[in-house]
């Protein structure tokens, strides 16, 4: 079943290798911006790739499900003409973290099951993921260990790179990865047992360095059984700013809204852009009726989608990859680990026998 090829790429050859990859497709990689921030962007030359970086807070899902995208254009007039077409350039995302790869695989399944989303599919079909094993947690908020999404992958990647000091261990996961590496294949040597030993060492070391923990299984049990009373959710949501950052920056979240935009020449664009279930308007109907009227009901929605048994059955895994973006972006500290911690703290009293609860 496993058809992974393991190869070795010397770091001195890395520039040449990625230049050869870039001959077929555009390269997207972490790049240092003016001011020092490292973010994924289309790079001109492999020289710009930054291998040591924290976490791009703006998830790389944006190259597959853009923050804003045109779906099709149309002209109105005597008769309506619709023009469609999907722009999907060949691209390689180099240096993407394991958690983001897992998230993209989650989205791939969501967007093709049971109905295929043509935009996402076209983009993903033309995208090769060169994921990078995290030798240590890139940020202290990371908790992919608790979410089965990192710091290294067993499957799901097209190509996986492990930094072994003076060389990369290159694992090729599928034909797409093999094809992308083909122009530079002459630079790749065969991996030796000592390379695997070193890789194993890095994995073990990485596993021991995680600080943040999220007890996802506990949350799944509470939420799937519908045990958490409304008041607990309302209490948790009290500090929520309704900014939607947790869901927009989540590499797994896929919800979008659709808008019509009028262009200067009188034609219209139907566009879609990221939306968030944390906004009150997400479910508000034209009549004014809102099935999710309170912040608590909306935060329950977010966690029901991330951690509940029916969704696990649907999506093949729970909807958190432990990238930690919601932790370091939320001003009110309502990231996944914190909310679960607060559930764990709030819930036991609801399970105590009545008399005992009365005594306290």
């Amino acid at each position, binding site marked *: 079943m496993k058809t992974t090829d393991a190869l070795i790429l010397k770091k001195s050859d890395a520039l040449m290798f990625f230049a050869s990859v870039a001959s077929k497709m555009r390269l997207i990689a972490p790049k240092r911006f003016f001011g020092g921030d490292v973010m994924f962007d289309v790079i001109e030359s492999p020289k710009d790739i930054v291998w040591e970086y924290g976490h791009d807070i703006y998830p790389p899902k944006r190259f597959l499900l853009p923050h804003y995208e045109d779906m099709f254009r149309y002209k109105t007039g005597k008769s309506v003409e619709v023009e469609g077409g999907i722009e999907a350039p060949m691209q390689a995302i180099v240096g993407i973290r394991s958690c983001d790869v897992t998230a993209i695989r989650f989205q791939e399944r969501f967007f093709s099951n049971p109905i*295929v989303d*043509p935009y996402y599919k076209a983009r993903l079909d033309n995208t090769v993921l060169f994921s990078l094993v995290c030798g240590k947690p890139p940020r202290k908020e990371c908790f992919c260990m608790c979410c089965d999404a990192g710091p290294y992958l067993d499957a799901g990647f097209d190509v996986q790179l492990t930094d072994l000091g003076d060389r990369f261990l290159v694992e090729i996961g599928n034909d797409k990865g093999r094809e992308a590496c083909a122009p530079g294949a002459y630079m790749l040597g065969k991996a030796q047992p000592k390379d695997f030993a070193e890789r194993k060492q890095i994995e073990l070391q990485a596993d021991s360095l995680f600080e943040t923990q999220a007890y996802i299984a506990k949350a799944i049990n509470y939420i799937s059984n519908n045990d958490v009373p409304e008041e607990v959710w309302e209490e948790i949501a009290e500090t929520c700013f309704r900014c939607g950052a947790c869901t927009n920056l989540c590499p797994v979240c896929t919800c979008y809204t659709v808008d019509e935009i009028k262009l200067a020449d009188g034609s219209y664009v139907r566009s879609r852009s990221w939306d968030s279930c944390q906004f009150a308007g997400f479910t508000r109907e034209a009549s004014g009726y809102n099935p999710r009227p309170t912040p608590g009901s909306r935060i329950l929605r977010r966690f029901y989608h991330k951690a509940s048994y029916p969704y696990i059955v649907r999506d093949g895994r729970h909807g958190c990859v432990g990238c930690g973006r919601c932790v370091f972006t939320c001003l009110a500290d309502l990231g996944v680990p914190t909310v679960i911690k607060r559930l764990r703290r709030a819930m036991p009293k609801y399970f105590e026998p009545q008399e005992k609860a009365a005594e306290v």
Partner: protein
Amino acid sequence: MVLTAAKPRKMWGVTDQPSGNLYVPMIAVIEDIIDETPDTKTFRLAFEDKNYAKSFSFEPGQFVEVTVFGAGEAPIGFASSPLEKSFFELTVVARGKVTQAMHKLKKGGQVGIRGPLGNCWPLEEIKGNDILVVSGGCGLAPLRPAILQILANREEYGEFWLLYGARTPADLDFKYDLEKWKQREDMHLLQTVDIGCDEWDCDVGVVTVLLDKIKVNAKKTVALTCGPPIMIKFVTISLLRTGFSEDRIVTSLERYMKCGVGKCGHCCVNHVYLCTEGPVFTYQQMRSLPELKL
């Protein structure tokens, strides 16, 4: 046998999607506009592409995403008989941005249609049963295809009651149908309004008052309901009290909706996407969704 909502034969994006991209609508032309109430119009539509029109079909309970070009897209349930092949009708209440823009359209205007979407009323499965249809306001529109199909195959079903409530006599939809149905001897039509007037000769009060007036055999009757959430709630409560089992109460739900194909995430109720797995549910199915708080 436990009754559930039925799977449709045709579904946009699954069985057919002629333009190749399931987000690009097919163009339909407005053939006629019928004024129902001050804020409701019925649009009679036919596809511009005649070949597509021939292959197009839907089942009662399904809906379409209507694009009003320049304004946006909104989900609207079919309101015409599925047996009618040359056109289909959508009944639209002017409420939001898109529906208000749609009301400004004239005969001959164009709209975009993506559909049929969603599942359908289990009309095949309930053959042989008595049928009780309870609807309120514009909730009659998504039930009308089901009613027309049942009336067309009247001998396959038992007794047939239609209970219909609206705010005022002027707010009654499909008055021309109600007149015809009143004459029919093989069905019972009971109407009520919240606020009556001098000419009004039927009941006054919410639609649940009509439930007390009829004698149904809860063991061999299936109730199809559609209307405002508060109406559905009280109708369901009275039906359960009458002895209906949970799977014999079938309802069409609605939510704010964007894509119609289970991707945009707006219409989720717990893990169920109303657009692809709904909008028709039995009460029993709805009970498994804690978010509905039933």
